[in-house]
């Protein structure tokens, strides 16, 4: 059964140095508050897993929490580059970042295999691309050709993702820790079901989870920790609760471009803010910056 705890407790108990951590949310319901709490608790040497390591992982990478990134698209959506990610790859700042990269279809299937308890998934994918055999890295460790035992067709196998911890943000949970989220639901269900442990932040905890069209429900017994963090997806959004703060995504381009400016943002908007507070702070990263 899920325990309802504070965000600080959830991160302290679920995420340890050296863990493989998947924080998911496909442009919607991104667990930003949880990410900032990981920075605040100064986790190190994490393998960060995420299809779209956007601004969330730019913050964690810049803060020095990660030694490896497994991903399929690393940009600031609708804005441009991730400067902290690029600085880590191009200049090893604040430290070297090992990459393992995929396509979205490959990552999605890797999560499905993890959730399904099988060692790999099969897809038509990667054929002829540079991702199949990453140059200079002795190939991609999670991609292999496979022959269909029934038809003889050549397909691609991708290794299952089994993160130590999955972290997601949902619209709500009930007092027993059953979790409900809707709208664009991405790969959050697969990430949680494939992980050893899970943390779910929610907009609100309610007495009864009413029906919602297209909602995914994660029963309490497959979730470990639930923390109530209203606005925990900011600057992304939670359908029915908040709108995307596009100004922040645009402002991030400026904040993250320069190392000193980024470090100031860390001080004022992460280390200078109590855990679980909504939003990205009112410092220079805030709306309208």
């Amino acid at each position, binding site marked *: 059964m899920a325990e309802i705890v504070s965000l600080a407790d959830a991160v302290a108990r679920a995420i340890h140095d050296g863990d493989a951590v998947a924080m998911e949310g496909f442009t919607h319901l991104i667990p930003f508050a949880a990410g900032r709490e990981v920075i605040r608790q100064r986790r190190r040497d994490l393998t960060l897993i995420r299809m779209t390591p956007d601004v969330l992982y730019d913050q964690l990478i810049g803060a020095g929490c990660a030694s490896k990134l497994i991903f399929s698209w690393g940009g600031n959506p609708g804005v441009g580059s991730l400067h902290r990610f690029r600085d880590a790859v191009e200049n090893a700042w604040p430290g070297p970042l090992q990459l393992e990269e995929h*396509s979205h279809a490959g990552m999605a299937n890797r999560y499905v295999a993890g959730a399904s308890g099988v060692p790999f998934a099969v897809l038509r994918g990667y054929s002829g691309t*540079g991702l199949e055999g990453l140059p200079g890295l002795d190939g991609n460790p999670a991609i292999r050709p496979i022959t269909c035992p029934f038809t003889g067709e050549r397909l691609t196998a991708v290794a299952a993702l089994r993160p130590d911890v999955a972290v997601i943000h949902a619209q709500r949970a009930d007092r027993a820790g059953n979790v409900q989220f809707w709208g*664009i639901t991405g790969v959050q269900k697969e990430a949680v079901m494939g992980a050893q442990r899970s943390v779910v932040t929610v907009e609100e905890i309610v007495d009864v989870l009413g029906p919602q069209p297209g909602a995914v429900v994660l029963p309490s017994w497959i979730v470990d920790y639930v923390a109530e963090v209203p606005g925990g997806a900011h600057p992304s959004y939670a359908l029915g609760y908040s709108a995307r703060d596009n100004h922040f995504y645009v402002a991030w381009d400026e904040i993250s471009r320069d190392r000193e400016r980024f470090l100031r943002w860390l001080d004022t908007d992460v280390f200078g803010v109590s855990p679980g507070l909504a939003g990205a702070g009112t410092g220079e990263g805030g709306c309208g910056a």
Partner: protein
Amino acid sequence: MSAIGSAAAAAPAAAAQPAAYTADEMMTACAARALPDGTVCFVGIGLPSAAANLARATHAPNLVLIYESGTIGAKPDRLPLSIGDGILAETSDAVVSVPEIFNYWLQPGRIGIGFLGAAQIDKFGNINTTVIGETYTHPKARLPGAGGAPEIAASCREVIVVMWQTRRSFVQRVDFVTSVGYGNGPGQRERLGLTGAGPLKVITDLGVLEPDPATCELTLTGVYPGVSIADVSAQTGWDLAVSGSLEVIEPPSPPELTALRRLQAISDGSEGAA
């Protein structure tokens, strides 16, 4: 990958054009026209999304827009800010998970047109969105990476690419093959088991390139008003072949410009209110 209108290059200052329009607007209108009404279209953000929504607002009201966030049949009344904008979920016929959109919808060949942008493309239509530079491990520039593009390029029945054309982006050979066009030439898609036809049109800010049926090499088949073959060759990193029936493409019509600017204005307004 700039959003339409945000960094628009000014149209030639000369008063030769009846209606002033930007290079961005010309390219977006041209791309929109390439989408027949009723087509099912897998849309990337930026230029492709603007063109697909312009098509819906003009000649193709029944265009089915699919975004990789899992929204099927999205009908936004403004340009989405990202492929996961809430307006896509709220206006779509169905919202499915990310594994489902790739496995059930894209992979079996249900999608007619894949609509992609790119940082770099080569003469065989191979696309690079991964790294610029000689080596993968020490790139000159790290780009966002693959996203949904490799499988969109492989499995959509056909692909249209929309991108700005410069000598640095149109190269003899891409630094990294993120998504396969025609590989190293004729027959390669079949050998790789890629089910779709590949990039049938590359639409740029100068004109349109299409693969030669025999060689698969991207060939200039259309130019915009006021653009010469020499202009396009100067922005192409290989010896550009030109079609015998080179077309001069119609400028954006007043209804196209009105619809596009309206979409842009609504989008800017809602961004401010976010």
